């Protein structure tokens, strides 16, 4: 019996080669894509699940309440962790960590690595397997990851070896005590080398400073302690150390939270850190990941729709066989099983093909979407289970439905070939409409996202982006000394207009980092808050900021160290009569000898942050001798930009031979800050293209089958004098009406969804009606082309031939 079924299945597949081909190719592509996307999703959701005490580890952040909103502060100050451990019951361990680039020297050879400054409790809280040595972490000890050990020493067997780290301009010796396995890719806590927090540059000054927020803090709770109880207990702790701040919040009319608090610690379960906007180690957009899952699902869905539609349409030709089998005494379940089995066979073929495609596409996929998934994921039992489950569900839906329909139908009807596969097949048509709704949705989404991206790229930012080169200083050099060396080296060179430095970059540079520092104080009973950026002299001139009053920082005037340049928003925040050039103020009214600042210039508002955010008050201050610029900006002449870049690189090599030159034009950096959007665009485009291809493959095969069924009608019409164009229109019209309906359904849906997406941007384009017309036209055109292949062929057929076939 089984042999009989399998034989018949293969012969059927062979007999309907074209349709089967469409089925398998469509499905394979969908399966390949779904596999890749699901691997990404699986990886994203598997983050931080490997810690043995994972359910008791929590990341810490602080919520600060104002009248309007709750502002989370992701970083924590140095003394917070010890205070939590000492004063909040139920906390077993705490760990602080911060990661930074550092220069390392082994036997005179210099390299740059990342150092994680942390507490010894790091090893007991997190679960990272030890390969060699022990996890002892004294003040001069260092623990390396396997890869780092191999990079530095050429072997992982390095326990007891010596190396030197350059901390605050001095080389200090460290002894390797242990080697840990590399952190898994799905770990939020990454490290390449681990040293004590006490070694962190600036540690003595920050040790007891509650107002400098720079660390990640994690706690491990005692078994049975709820995170809520810790959060509740943190109210008293924060009141103790931030009493003044809280009093000021109260005065400013802040609304207290559920425990009557104005500040409270928040606890993020370890496994949610990856998706948490309140952790600097996380911040991955869950919505984007879920969207990948959604796209994987609907690609499979539309490919299954093809399958259902084609099987249904072909059941017309299978009807006689089914009828005859019924006459011979086949039971319903036997018929259903046989037809489902055929679907299953096709799906298995498609699964294998799809798996192969996915395997071949993996490197390209990883580079396109920065997902870093590997095929070993496929071996996870959960993943295999998921694939099998999906296979069963999809085949049950795609093979089972037509099977059940045929098996249920009256024997006599199927024998006479009167299956309900006529032109008025609402089920089939609604499936085609569904496919094209998805296609149109994605076309519209792509167009809107593309317009928004264009808008972001072309909107004037208020400063010069295309002629300014930004260079990260790196960990090895002293920024202020380097800036001076570079200034004198570049002096008088052609094409170089001016040079400056700052402690924050524009956009995202080639070092991949972004930073923000915000300062708040009270001025005349009013809460003030502003972005606080340290810059070097000639900053306004170099960046081509537009002064509405006052002047740039100048090297010639020593008094500029207490001078500030502010933007218009800041001037507005000061209020009338205050925020003008020459205005003097102190940031701390209580302390008599607090620094008095003078506003020397006001610049027009410019977009120093990405266009997601509105322009907020900004204060530029001059970097003091002990504050070093982390970025150097060089303004070059607009002609011969690349020559100037080369000239700068050459000069850099002369003044900082040990640090590689990773300069880039600011315009590249500002574009890089829309990475998430660019990825989303790629997802939209790829998803859209695939959806359209698969839908059209279905349409193509469907047209072929329907025309096959209507051969006689077409022949008769031609004999009666219908023109070829008339026949082609007749056939195409039915399909195009369906696409038209799909456009009407998709447009409002897309409008709602994309408006939501656009809300993420403070500056955005409108959704113009022409987008819908364009998208609809595209869908219509593609569908018409697809169908016309078949309909034109049918229309040109010799009527005598087509009549004879009946």
């Amino acid at each position, binding site marked *: 019996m089984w042999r009989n079924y399998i034989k018949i299945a293969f012969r059927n597949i062979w007999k309907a080669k074209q349709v089967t081909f469409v089925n398998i190719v469509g499905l394979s592509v969908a399966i390949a894509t779904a596999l890749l996307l699901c691997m990404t999703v699986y990886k994203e959701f598997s983050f931080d699940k490997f810690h043995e005490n994972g359910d008791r580890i929590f990341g810490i952040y602080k919520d600060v309440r104002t009248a309007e909103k709750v502002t989370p502060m992701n970083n924590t100050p140095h003394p917070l962790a010890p205070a939590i451990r000492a004063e909040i019951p139920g906390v077993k361990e705490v760990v602080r960590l911060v990661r930074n680039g550092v220069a390392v020297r082994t036997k005179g050879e210099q390299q740059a690595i990342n150092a994680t400054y942390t507490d010894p409790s790091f090893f007991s809280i997190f679960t990272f397997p030890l390969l060699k040595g022990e996890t002892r972490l004294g003040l001069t000890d260092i623990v390396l990851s396997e890869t780092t050990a191999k990079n530095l020493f050429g072997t992982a067997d390095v326990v007891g070896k010596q190396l030197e780290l350059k901390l605050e301009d001095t080389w200090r010796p460290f002894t390797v005590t242990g080697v840990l396995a590399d952190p898994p890719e799905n770990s939020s806590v990454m490290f390449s080398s681990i040293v004590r927090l006490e070694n962190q540059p600036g540690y003595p000054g920050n040790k007891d400073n509650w107002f400098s927020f720079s660390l990640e803090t994690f706690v491990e709770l005692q078994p049975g302690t709820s995170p809520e109880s810790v959060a509740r207990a943190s109210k008293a702790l924060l009141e103790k150390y931030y009493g003044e701040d809280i009093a000021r919040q109260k005065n400013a009319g802040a609304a207290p939270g559920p425990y009557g608090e104005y500040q409270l610690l928040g606890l993020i379960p370890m496994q949610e850190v990856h998706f948490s906007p309140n952790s600097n180690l996380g911040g991955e957009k869950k919505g984007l990941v879920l969207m990948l899952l959604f796209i994987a699902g609907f690609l499979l869905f539309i490919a299954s729709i093809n399958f259902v539609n084609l099987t249904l349409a072909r059941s017309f030709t299978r009807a006689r066989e089914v009828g*005859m089998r019924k006459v*011979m005494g086949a039971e319903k379940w*036997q018929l259903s099983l046989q037809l489902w089995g055929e679907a299953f066979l096709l799906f298995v073929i498609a699964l294998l093909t799809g798996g192969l495609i996915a395997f071949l596409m993996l490197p390209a996929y990883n580079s396109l979407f920065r997902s870093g998934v590997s095929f070993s994921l496929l071996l996870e039992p959960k993943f295999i289970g998921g694939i099998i489950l999906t296979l069963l569900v999809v085949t049950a839906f795609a093979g089972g439905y037509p099977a059940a329909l045929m098996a249920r139908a009256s024997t*006599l009807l199927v*024998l006479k070939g009167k299956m309900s596969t006529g032109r008025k097949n609402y089920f089939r048509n609604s499936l085609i409409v569904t496919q094209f709704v998805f296609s149109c949705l994605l076309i519209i989404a792509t167009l809107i996202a593309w317009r928004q991206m264009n808008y972001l790229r072309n909107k004037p930012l208020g400063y010069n982006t295309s002629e300014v080169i930004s260079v990260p200083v790196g960990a090895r050099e002293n920024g202020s000394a380097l800036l001076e060396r570079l200034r004198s080296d570049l002096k008088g060179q052609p094409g170089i207009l001016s040079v400056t430095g700052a402690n924050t970059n524009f956009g995202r540079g080639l070092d991949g980092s972004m930073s923000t520092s915000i300062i708040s104080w009270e001025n005349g009973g009013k809460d003030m808050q502003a972005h606080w950026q340290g810059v070097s002299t000639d900053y306004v001139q170099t960046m081509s900021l537009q002064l509405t009053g006052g002047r740039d920082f100048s090297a010639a005037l020593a008094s500029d160290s207490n001078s500030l340049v502010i933007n218009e928003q800041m001037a507005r925040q000061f209020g009338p009569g205050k925020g003008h050039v020459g205005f003097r103020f102190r940031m701390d009214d209580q302390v008599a000898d607090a620094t008095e600042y003078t506003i020397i210039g006001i610049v027009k508002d410019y977009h120093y942050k990405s266009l997601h955010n509105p322009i907020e008050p900004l204060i530029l201050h001059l970097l003091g001798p002990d504050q070093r610029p982390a970025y150097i900006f060089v303004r070059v002449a607009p002609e011969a930009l690349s020559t100037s870049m080369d000239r700068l690189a050459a000069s850099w090599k002369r003044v900082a031979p040990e640090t590689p030159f990773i300069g880039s034009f600011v315009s590249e950096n500002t574009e890089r800050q829309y990475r998430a959007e660019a990825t989303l665009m790629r997802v939209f485009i790829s998803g859209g293209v695939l959806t359209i291809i698969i839908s059209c493959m279905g349409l193509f095969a469907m047209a072929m089958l329907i025309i096959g069924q209507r051969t006689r009608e077409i022949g008769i019409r031609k004999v009666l004098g219908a023109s070829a164009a008339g026949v082609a229109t007749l056939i195409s019209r039915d399909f195009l009406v369906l696409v038209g309906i799909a456009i009407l359904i998709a447009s409002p849906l897309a409008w709602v969804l994309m408006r939501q997406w656009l809300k993420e941007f403070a500056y955005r384009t409108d959704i113009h009606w022409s987008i819908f017309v364009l998208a609809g036209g595209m869908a219509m055109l593609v569908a018409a082309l697809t169908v016309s292949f078949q309909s034109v062929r049918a229309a040109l057929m010799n009527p005598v031939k087509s009549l004879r076939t009946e």
Partner: protein
Amino acid sequence: MIQLRNITKHYPVGFGKHEILKDVNLDIQQGEFVSIMGPSGSGKSTLLHILGMLEDASEGEYLFQDEPVHKMNDKKRTQLHRGSIGFVFQAYHLIDELTVYENIETPLLYKNVPSGERKSRVADILDRFNMVAKKDLFPTQLSGGQQQLVGIARAIVAEPAVIFADEPTGNLHSDQARQIMELFAELNKKDGITIVQVTHSDVNAGYGNRVIQIMDGRIQ
């Protein structure tokens, strides 16, 4: 073997109904070769479908081997289709994707006949019908007459008590038709299979031993 009592069949048409069979009473004994004749639309095919349990009568009683068919469930009918009833159609209705051998074998598969016995029975039939050389061909590679031979072989391989044939020679020319009818006669006489056929042709009816004339849904 077959007893019809006051069988009526009608379809709803608009607010009324269209009667196809009216008060049909019919007895067919084991071993008979019955031909049902009548003009187009007289209801002879419907009668055959009711006899073959492919359709239900609207009213009346039908006893097959003394069992009431009108009270049977689907399962029981499927059992009868597997074991006691064979069908031969005008359009052959062979399964195009299966070879001659496999087509004949299929009813035995549904009847759960063990593999060894299946082989010998199919081989016997092929031998008897002189089709051994054609066993690996597909139906489309055969002439109409040969296809109908396969159809009959398939109908009798499960050794049914009765064969219902719906214009079995309708698509064949006279030589082939004669061959098929002779085969029916032989099956009837030698194997004792009851045969009920629908036919237009007096020649074909002549092979049987009883003719039932039907006109406007009534047996004359």
